């Protein structure tokens, strides 16, 4: 995939982006912002404010009705069906419902992005172990996801999102079902990824958590960007 010049200093850029869903409320209206490489930001707002929609637009799970989105130098409007897989490998995604494969071990789940990218066995082994070590699940490599707690499953999802070292990681309510202590642990993990240069955009409605961490916070209300607080 060709790198496009002129936006090398921006990892994510939204320009007047609108997205509406026929017959329902929600969506986004004229949203503009940008994130620099290595930046970390929270995305907050009530449910239905458009947090998930925004993340889906970044990961090309949805396409906007209007406006332009650039991610890691790519104009997303120019990415067709064929280039989509290559683009997705540059964006790690974490979901509230984990989206793990129930019939595969933790190791195989985390290995998936490397397997689809055609990495060698040795490389897969090395990187998966490193990722599992990072999230503290090295000992559970052979377990099936159902045997893990919610927090552990979430960490498997995180390991999978970062195992191929994508420049951008998106997280949609990663602490949604977790108690405050576990939530803080997860956030600490994100901070560590951020420190090695990963750009992170984390959607959460857990305002308590957001307040406690000195991090840039984008606030959505009814599809509009109404706040951009920097620490």
């Amino acid at each position, binding site marked *: 995939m060709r790198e496009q010049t002129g936006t090398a200093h921006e990892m994510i850029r939204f320009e007047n982006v609108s997205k509406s869903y026929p017959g329902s409320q929600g969506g986004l209206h004229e949203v503009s912002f940008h994130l620099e490489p290595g930046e970390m930001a929270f995305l907050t707002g009530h449910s239905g404010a458009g947090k998930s929609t925004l993340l889906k637009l970044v990961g090309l*799970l949805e396409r906007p009705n209007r406006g332009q989105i650039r991610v890691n130098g790519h104009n997303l409007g120019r990415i067709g069906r064929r280039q989509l897989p290559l683009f997705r490998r540059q964006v790690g*995604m974490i979901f509230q419902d984990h*989206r793990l494969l129930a019939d595969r071990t933790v190791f195989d789940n985390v290995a998936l992005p490397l397997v*689809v990218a*055609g990495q060698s066995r040795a490389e897969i082994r090395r990187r998966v172990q490193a990722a599992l070590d990072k999230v503290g699940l090295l000992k559970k490599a052979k377990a099936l996801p159902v045997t893990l707690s919610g927090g552990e499953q979430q960490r498997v999802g995180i390991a999978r999102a970062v195992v191929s070292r994508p420049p951008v990681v998106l997280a949609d309510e990663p602490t949604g079902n977790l108690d405050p202590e576990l939530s803080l642990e997860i956030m600490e993990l994100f901070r560590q990824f951020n420190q090695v240069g990963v750009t992170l955009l984390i959607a959460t409605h857990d305002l308590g958590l957001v307040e406690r961490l000195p991090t840039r916070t984008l606030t959505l209300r009814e599809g509009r960007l109404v706040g951009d607080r920097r620490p």
Partner: protein
Amino acid sequence: MNRRRRAARLQDRFQLRAWLMRHLQVFFSSLGRLWQRPLGNFMSVLVIAIAMALPAGLHLVVDNLERLSDHWEGAAGATLFLQQGLDDAKVETLLQRLRREPQVGELKHLTPGQALAEFRRHSGMADAISLLEENPLPHVVLIRPADPGIPAERFRALVERLRDHPEVERAIADLQWVERFQGMVHLLQRGTTILAALLSLAVLLVIGNTIRLEIQNRRQEIEIVKLVGGSHAFIRRPFLYEGFWYGLLGAALALLLLSLSLFLLHGPVSRLARLYGSDFTLESPGPAVVLAIFLTGSLLGILGAWIAVHQQLQEIEPT
């Protein structure tokens, strides 16, 4: 420069090996997946096998029938009616000339007297015949080809040539039986082709449908693989191999069914043949047929899976 090229070649070789390894891995893992639902998958394979065994079996029957018609000893013959009122010397020279023909085998001469006697015996019109003032029948020569396996066309040409003798009034090639038989064989051949085409379509649909269900069952997995950047080729691969396995296993089972049928038919067929004084036996499918069945099976499998995958994979997108 040279070193860089060598490095590039090494890289290519490495990538080729990785590519082969990936295919090999999917090759076996897709077979393993079939094992996970043995009963349901066995039923699908059985349906495929029956659909393949039917035309293959019919083909075998037609093949054997053709062989039978090739060796239909003594079925072909010709009758030469000579000119009326030919004197015995001329008849004798003709007979000698006919005996010298290399393609003419057995030869039987009936004088008008013999012919009339035979006619009287067989026709049941003895009274009417005795009213005739003179014998209306000519000399008749019955001939058989020297080579009993002679093709119909060559035999017909021979008879044409014999008709050119001035002593011969009419020459009739008695090929009707052989030709009818061959006509029937041709009809069966055409029918087999049509049946094979229809049942191939059925195999295609069965495999396509099986793969379609499999895709539905693994919808969530496909979504997740797409989410982490799996290409279409990557997602398609295991399903194509699965189709291949269905086709291949179906072909193997079809051959098994075929061999079993042949085994069961062997006894009655040779008993029937013996009643006709023949040592005819059913011939098993040759290596070419076996190869064709395996090839057809696996190709239909891949094609059926490809159609199913092509239809379905684009709709499945992560949300």
